[in-house]
């Protein structure tokens, strides 16, 4: 056992602390090449991660970078800096700690490169930028420890893949640097360990005491939830009462739009004027900082928020977490619950508020899963190649590189351990020449090969462009929203460009909880004025929509079989009974399909329970088949449990649409032409460096760009269907937005059993789908017909003839 040096144990004693078991174990294993700590929030996890570094630096003061710390949030890096400063100052340790994020000034960044601190706190993107500099070997010389915080959150995303490639680069520069991962409770620690560890090393996993079980329940509300919708307006009064009864409440929402609406309604009903704030990713940074600061000072009783507060600063005084809407995923629910009560020995308290009756069922299943500790996890895929392409370009920025060495380094990274040389070479070729079947660009390739076989940038100007486009986070094209200049020009946040395009002068929408009036567009900024007295149009935000996990979906279908719903609130039990009476309940081994007419359109609803993305794919496949069969589909919408298609023609034999071979056969053809693929392509092409979002001297928006990604996609599809980026797009779509795996799982589960019911009107289960956002239009024959009709009407109205 490594004994805590006196200086440290004294300091612990003055604070009245004793070292936690897992902190001691971290010390004991300090020399392990890789170490993963799984601990609940509030368990002194961060100090556990830094203790070996502090002890090392106290024992042997030195110059230069000793430890690099990476967290997924800028705010977390800044917070850790504050928290670590306390022991360092109080013990008088010779340790300099600095953070470096997108918010750090450029002069400070330059100084950090010349004279790195002992401990540098940063984010994956800032680290990627650091390794792209020619002087990276000097900056990182002597690095001992690499600490990755909230690694469970990073392991789920491309940011994590990019980070681990950068860490592989660090280990190439400093082979002895050790890796430390800090994680919240996860379903599969081994997978995180593999993600963290060099392929040739092994990883020690330490499990801290998980603490007491959370106190979690569905919020008891007198009024029943609505049949449909996601706003949970019916719960406003009950949530206000809870806020009043607790010190500080975090109110989580699944989407930004819902958070905005809920916040707005909360204030309308807030008779006691309880101080309540809002926090989400589309709000202006200044606004978010203000809310966070007020929270730290303990001035807020509640914050309405989204995933933007899933991670982050420990607010010790949060004593209640409210989740509005079904949690979709048990693991994330558990992590959100952990945001309450960041002291180690009290249970976290959480309340679930289903937004509609279907979500009541989902919440019930989720509650049971939390109780039985059965977390859900989807297997992590292979390392994505678009991220590798960006990494190759980053490495090229730092100087000439040897491809064989880079290939070996890449394979040392967990997610890329089975990368083939062919795959690597394809990425390298893409970076060097574009990788096109038609080699027309030899004159203008991006990388060139030196006589010794090393690759280098052809044009040094590229380095600046590549650095400007580092990162894997895809923001949708957004426009800034400001109050009109003569009223101070205060920035409010951002809205999606597509939404902005639908606004005309005088339209109103919600942002940051206030109703504003659209005044006009000046350059890339939406100008608005305050408008308190109008019902708003609602701002749309893309946000990430998570699919309900396989485990939760299966749980719901199992629950439907029971025919005994006494443990559900009466309103929901009655709703299910009603569905059973007028139609049927979905079953795991059959596919329920309802068709009905509603307000002049023909509808088809398929209850696949395959999760939002797979249901969306099903929608695309179905509408394609319908288009082929002349059934005039107009569009569809997908939720986690069903797909609703509408069109101009009655579908009499849906089984023909669902024939498995036809579905799978049509897949490849269909795959090429749809909007989801184009969206996926856009993201991958941006990450891989084909589309540059930021150009020297300007920040372009997607729409201002001189050519759209759709045109590039169509061109590649037509002339170069085997191109690397199309292959990447297919892979990404299969596991991401397309989720064909879950669709296949569904078709196997139902084994051809289709239950078609023709209804005289919409069914209780189908009704909510009509109100879902995210409708996907189909650009087929029906659209051409509608365009012609609309054009004729306009010409006639204008008194024009052709």
């Amino acid at each position, binding site marked *: 056992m490594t004994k805590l040096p006196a200086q440290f144990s004294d300091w612990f004693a003055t604070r009245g602390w004793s070292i936690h078991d897992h902190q001691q174990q971290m010390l004991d294993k300090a020399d392990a090449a890789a170490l993963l700590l799984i601990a609940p929030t509030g368990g002194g996890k961060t100090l556990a991660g830094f203790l070996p570094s502090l002890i090392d630096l106290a024992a042997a003061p030195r110059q230069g970078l000793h430890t690099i710390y990476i967290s997924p949030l800028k705010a977390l890096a800044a917070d850790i800096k504050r928290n670590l400063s306390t022991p360092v100052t109080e013990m008088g340790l010779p340790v300099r700690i600095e953070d470096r994020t997108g918010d750090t000034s450029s002069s400070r960044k330059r100084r950090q490169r010349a004279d790195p601190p002992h401990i540098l706190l940063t984010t994956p993107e800032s680290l990627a930028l650091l390794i792209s500099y020619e002087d990276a070997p000097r900056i990182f010389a002597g690095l001992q420890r690499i600490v990755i915080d909230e690694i469970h959150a990073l392991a789920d995303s491309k940011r994590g893949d990019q980070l681990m490639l950068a860490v592989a680069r660090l280990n190439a520069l400093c082979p002895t640097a050790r890796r430390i991962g800090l994680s919240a409770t996860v379903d599969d620690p081994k997978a995180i360990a593999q993600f963290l560890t060099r392929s040739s090393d092994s990883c020690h996993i330490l499990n801290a005491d998980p603490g007491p079980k959370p106190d979690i329940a569905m919020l008891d509300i007198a009024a029943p939830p609505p049949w449909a919708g996601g706003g949970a307006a019916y719960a406003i009064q009950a949530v206000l009462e809870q806020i009043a009864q607790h010190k500080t409440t975090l109110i989580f929402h699944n989407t930004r739009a819902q958070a905005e609406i809920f916040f707005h309604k909360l204030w309308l009903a807030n008779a006691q004027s309880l101080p309540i704030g809002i926090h989400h990713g589309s709000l202006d940074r200044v606004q978010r900082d203000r809310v966070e600061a007020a929270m730290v000072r303990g001035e807020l009783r509640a914050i309405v928020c989204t995933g933007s507060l899933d991670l982050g600063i420990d607010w010790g005084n949060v004593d209640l977490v409210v989740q509005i809407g079904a949690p979709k995923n048990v693991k994330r629910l558990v992590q959100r619950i952990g945001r309450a009560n960041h002291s180690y020995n009290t249970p976290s308290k959480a309340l679930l508020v289903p937004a509609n009756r279907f979500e009541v069922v989902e919440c019930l299943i989720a509650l049971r899963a939390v109780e039985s500790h059965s977390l859900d996890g989807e297997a992590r895929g292979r390392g994505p190649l678009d991220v590798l392409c960006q990494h190759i370009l980053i490495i090229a920025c730092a100087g000439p590189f040897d491809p064989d060495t880079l290939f070996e380094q890449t394979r040392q990274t967990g997610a890329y351990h089975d990368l083939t040389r062919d795959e690597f070479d394809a990425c390298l070729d893409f970076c060097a*020449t*574009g990788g*096109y*079947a*038609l080699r*027309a*660009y030899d004159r*203008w*390739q*991006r990388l060139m090969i030196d006589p010794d076989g090393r690759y280098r940038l052809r*044009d040094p*100007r*590229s380095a600046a*462009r590549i650095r400007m486009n580092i990162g894997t986070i895809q923001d949708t094209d957004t426009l800034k929203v400001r109050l009109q200049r003569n009223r101070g020009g205060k920035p409010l946040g951002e809205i999606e460009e597509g939404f*902005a*395009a*639908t*606004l*005309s002068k005088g339209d109103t929408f919600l942002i940051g909880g206030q109703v504003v009036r659209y005044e*006009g*567009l000046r350059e890339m900024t939406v100008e608005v004025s305050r408008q308190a007295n109008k019902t708003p149009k609602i701002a749309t935000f893309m946000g990430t929509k998570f699919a309900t996990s396989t485990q939760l979906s299966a749980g719901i279908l199992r629950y439907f079989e029971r025919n005994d719903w006494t443990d559900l609130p009466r309103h929901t039990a009655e709703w299910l009974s009603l569905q059973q009476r007028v139609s049927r309940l979905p079953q795991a081994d059959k596919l329920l399909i309802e068709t009905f007419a509603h307000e002049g359109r023909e509808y088809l609803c398929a209850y696949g329970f395959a999760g939002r993305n797979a249901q969306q794919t099903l929608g695309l496949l179905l509408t394609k088949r319908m288009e082929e069969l002349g059934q005039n589909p*107009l*569009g569809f919408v997908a939720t986690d449990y069903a797909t609703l298609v509408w069109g101009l023609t009655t579908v009499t034999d849906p089984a023909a649409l669902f024939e498995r071979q036809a579905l799978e056969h049509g897949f490849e053809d269909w795959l090429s032409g749809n909007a989801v693929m184009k969206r996926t392509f856009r993201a991958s092409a941006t990450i891989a*460096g*084909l*589309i*540059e979002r930021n*150009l020297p001297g300007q920040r372009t928006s997607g*729409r*201002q*760009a*001189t*050519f*759209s990604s759709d*045109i*590039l996609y169509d*061109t*590649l599809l*037509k*002339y*170069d269907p*085997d*191109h690397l980026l199309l292959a990447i797009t297919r892979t990404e779509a299969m596991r991401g937005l397309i989720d064909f795996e879950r669709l296949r799982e569904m078709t196997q589960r139902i084994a051809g059993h289709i239950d078609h019911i023709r209804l005289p009107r919409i069914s209780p289960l189908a009704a909510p789908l009509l109100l879902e956002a995210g409708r996907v*239009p189909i*650009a087929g024959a*029906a*659209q*051409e017909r*509608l*365009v*012609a*009709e*609309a*054009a004729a009407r*306009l*010409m006639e109205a*204008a008194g*024009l003839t*052709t």
Partner: protein
Amino acid sequence: MKARNAQGKLQKTLTGGVPIALAGASLIALGSGALWWPAKSMLCVSDLHLGKSERYARAGGATLPPYQTQGTLLKLESDLDAYPASTVICLGDSFDHPQAPSELAKDDRLWINRLQAGRDWIWIEGNHDPGPLDIGGSHRTTLSVHPLFFQHIAAPDHNGDIMGGEVSGHYHPKARLKTAARTVSRACFLLDRQRLILPAYGTYTGGLHSNHSQLQALMGAGAVAVLTGKTPQIIPMPRSGTDR
């Protein structure tokens, strides 16, 4: 080389057309974005922007798919198959920069020669491709074919009675149409009593919405837009909405 071999098999898409009239000339606005003048057997296309991706790559940017020229020429070839013009007018910005013609791949240059065979071919200069170009055909700054007058950029003070109907390009106009189900946005022709503005015909080109102030100022009252696409549609020129 695969794409090149596949070239013969690539589908040429045929689009329909909308009859329009300018200064007494009967014209057809094709869904492809080309203008067909049956009486003179003339086909007019604008803003091909050949060579745009090369310029992009040369500035140290990404290497875009090198199929832009093929895509544009294939479209032009299918239009010429359907409308065997005796004269082709390329209405400026045919090339993205003055060096672009000499940088054309040999096969693409031959392809252009093949399209030019047996017909008059007129390159009108644009702001991207001023001055003499290294490619066959006649080169003009403007062209007058009674009762029409062709130039790359519309003249704000153009007077239709003296000069004849003006046909121009340059702005890459597009327009939105709200249908019963959704709003679609398409490249379009803009037409009023004295002026016609063509959409961009090239593959890698962006666009300017019809409600942009510059287009608003150019087009008179009663202007219409012909939306390109499989079935081109004529609508009143959309003039309100977001100014972009």
